[in-house]
């Protein structure tokens, strides 16, 4: 895949921007059920939630985005089905698998119009979000580390933004958490990029038991602000 088009850093900002019209705003990244279960009640617990999420679901998403990006940059999509299956195996909750695939379809739908590339059409009917993010990053001329960082940031800032609607918080305090986490996200993205070229089976799989349990409860609630 030719690395042409938008300038690198600016392209990364485009891809990671919460305003990218791909439907991410409808999700809280599991924060809503965590607040509903009273597991997150203050800023310290919010920060612990976000760090825990980045170190689990974030690490997995980053690894798969980086792996997909590395392959798309080589125009080799042959392992995408294996990446999809490996990612499925890392998400016990069917609800979270569906959310990941819904967000993946939406990201592909958006990017197919924003910055078209033939690879998007080759990803199967409902690709996972990290896979699409990796391919979209490659289409924008970005590398595996950029892809990892984009999805880490998008997932983290999306959950943080949801806090303003779910909790009595000072938005400055919420963004202070994001600022404190910046170095962590860089580090996690670097680690994801280092693994990107290896076999899909070796990609990390840190689980988050409460995230899976809470997601299944959330789907069954009558009233909810966020889809997940």
């Amino acid at each position, binding site marked *: 895949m030719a690395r042409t088009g938008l300038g690198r850093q600016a392209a990364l900002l485009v891809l990671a921007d919460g305003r990218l019209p791909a439907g991410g705003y409808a999700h809280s990244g*599991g924060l809503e059920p*965590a607040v509903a*279960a009273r*597991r*997150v009640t203050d800023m310290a*617990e919010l*920060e*612990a*939630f*976000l*760090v*825990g*999420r*980045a*170190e*689990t*679901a974030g690490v997995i998403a980053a690894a798969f985005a980086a792996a997909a990006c590395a392959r798309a940059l080589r125009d080799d999509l042959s392992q995408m089905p294996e990446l999809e*299956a*490996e990612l*499925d*195996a*890392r998400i*016990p*909750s*069917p*609800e979270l*698998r569906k959310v990941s695939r819904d967000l993946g379809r939406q990201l592909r739908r958006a990017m197919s119009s924003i910055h078209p590339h033939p690879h998007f059409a080759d990803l199967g009917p409902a690709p996972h979000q990290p896979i699409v993010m990796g391919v979209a990053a490659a289409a924008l001329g970005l590398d595996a580390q950029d892809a990892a960082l984009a999805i880490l940031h998008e997932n983290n800032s999306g959950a943080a933004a949801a806090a303003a609607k779910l909790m009595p918080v000072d938005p400055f305090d919420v963004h202070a958490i994001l600022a404190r986490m910046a170095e*962590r996200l860089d580090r996690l993205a670097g680690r994801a990029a280092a693994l990107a070229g290896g076999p899909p*089976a070796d990609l*990390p*799989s*840190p*689980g*988050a*038991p*409460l*995230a*899976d*349990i809470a997601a*299944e*409860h959330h789907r*069954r609630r009558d009233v909810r602000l966020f889809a997940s």
Partner: protein
Amino acid sequence: MYDSLHHRAPAGPVGAMSARAVLASELNGKGRISRIRTLRSDGPLVLRKSNPKGPEPLTRRRHDVARVALAAGTAGPLGGDDYALDVNVGAGSTLVLQEVSAMLILPGQGGAQSKMAINITVEQGATFVWWAEPVIAAHRCNHLHDVRIALAPDARMILREEILLGRHGEAPGDFSSRLRITRGGLALYDQQIAFGPSSDGWDGAAVLGGHRATGSVIAVDPDWVDAPPAAAPFDQNAALTPLAGPGAAIGAVAPDSLELRRLLMRGVTELGPSWAT
């Protein structure tokens, strides 16, 4: 960190133990009764045949299963120890592996890492039941737990894993565990859990939320290819979730081992009659 006087170079610090136990089952000549083919204990990993007392739970109440108990010959593993257990469930046979007591993981000299690698293959038409006791990550331990299970496409399996974050009232050491299950070579379930002073975020609401026990029951049943069990979040701290293949995971967190066991066993009742206890 390493003592220059150690005598067992590859195993790490002084007194560190390296052990590899092997267990295999097969069908007998007439192809009816499962029996033990290999039973090789090694040092602290002691394998003992135990005869079924009656119809065996979780195996459609069969009488003709092979049954083995794993006992710990010593405390540990301790830091530096390197344990391995290889299990082969031969074609068509049914193996039930139970454990005599919890595994207490303790720190070793100089903070060296202990390892436990368990490799299991379940061949075609075979059934594997592994009813493990808790793994307890004691204060200041440093342990890597790695379980790999390769299932034939038509193999059945159920296992229980329980992890306790420290003994009563103590903070856990560094612990990292991976359970990876493949079916016909394709990934079916792959989850790591890591906690302790060197890990971040595990105590937060996305992961363990301050709980001191976590565990799961994983069941794989070829009959579920067409009709997987429905998702069931049956407790605030537990859920049964169908996997992307013919398997189901029951995940739970709890303040202690008793409550964890209660949640997991309640989840098992949601799996349906073929997994009746």
